[in-house]
């Protein structure tokens, strides 16, 4: 019985005598040493979009500008309706696939 009491009192002392260590700037020092934050995804996406738009504009400009747009409009107007539907469905599928991929990668990041 004495043995048990002694053991309990030792355990209690071990627990009680473990002091709470005051932060005293420790957290700030750790955070200061963290590697710089990665470029945010939204910023990267914006950059990617800007480069794509600039490339499109350059292609449009060097390919003859206005005449290219008129030719494209005429070609599309002459396109059979079935083809128009196929193109629209293809574009919709592409957008859906992109959205799905983004959602999946985000949910994977959260579950880790």
């Amino acid at each position, binding site marked *: 019985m004495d043995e048990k009491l002694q*053991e309990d009192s030792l*355990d209690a002392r071990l627990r009680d005598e473990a002091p709470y*260590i005051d*932060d005293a700037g420790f*957290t700030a020092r750790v955070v200061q040493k963290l590697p710089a934050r990665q470029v945010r995804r939204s910023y990267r996406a914006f950059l990617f979009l800007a480069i794509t738009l600039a490339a499109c504009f350059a292609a449009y400009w060097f390919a003859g500008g206005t005449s290219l747009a008129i030719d494209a409009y005429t070609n599309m107007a002459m396109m059979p309706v079935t083809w128009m539907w196929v193109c629209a469905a293809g574009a919709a599928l592409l957008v859906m696939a992109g959205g799905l991929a983004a959602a999946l990668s985000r949910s994977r*990041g959260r579950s*880790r």
Partner: protein
Amino acid sequence: MALADADLVARVLVDDDHHAFAELVRNHQSSVRGLLRNLVRSDVTLADDLAQETFLKAYKNLRSFRGEARFSTWLYRIAYNCFREEARKRKELVGIDEAQLEAEHDPQTVDPALRHDLARALELLPVHERSAIVLCCQNGLSHDEASRVLDIPLGTVKTNVLRGREKLKKMLSAWGSN
């Protein structure tokens, strides 16, 4: 409302949120620094350096935290590995002077001017017993969790806790402080 460790970890992983990581450090700094102070025998500067290294390693390897164990257990494991790496360089962190330990058991040789307390008794234990006692009795880990932190079999943890306790009791009774 304070966020749970899992939410803070998710924020760090998804948004690289330094504020969330700072919250994790604030929540666990005391126990990690306390563990390391016990392991390095109260060398506060070295313990804090190792604690800093522990949190930086935790940040870099956060993706490998699967959430199967408690976040604190995972941190203790990193802290213990940091200590082991340091102990390989400094033998005095692991070694124990057996003659000194015997002298501490003998009430005739105890220096009455010294304040002999539990912390001093803990310092005199060999590192494997000290780490098991600190993790299980001070930090509240189960034997199973401690065996994962220390990377030793469960039976060895139980033996180390038992032997460490016996030695502590002997020392404290020899000093008349229990």
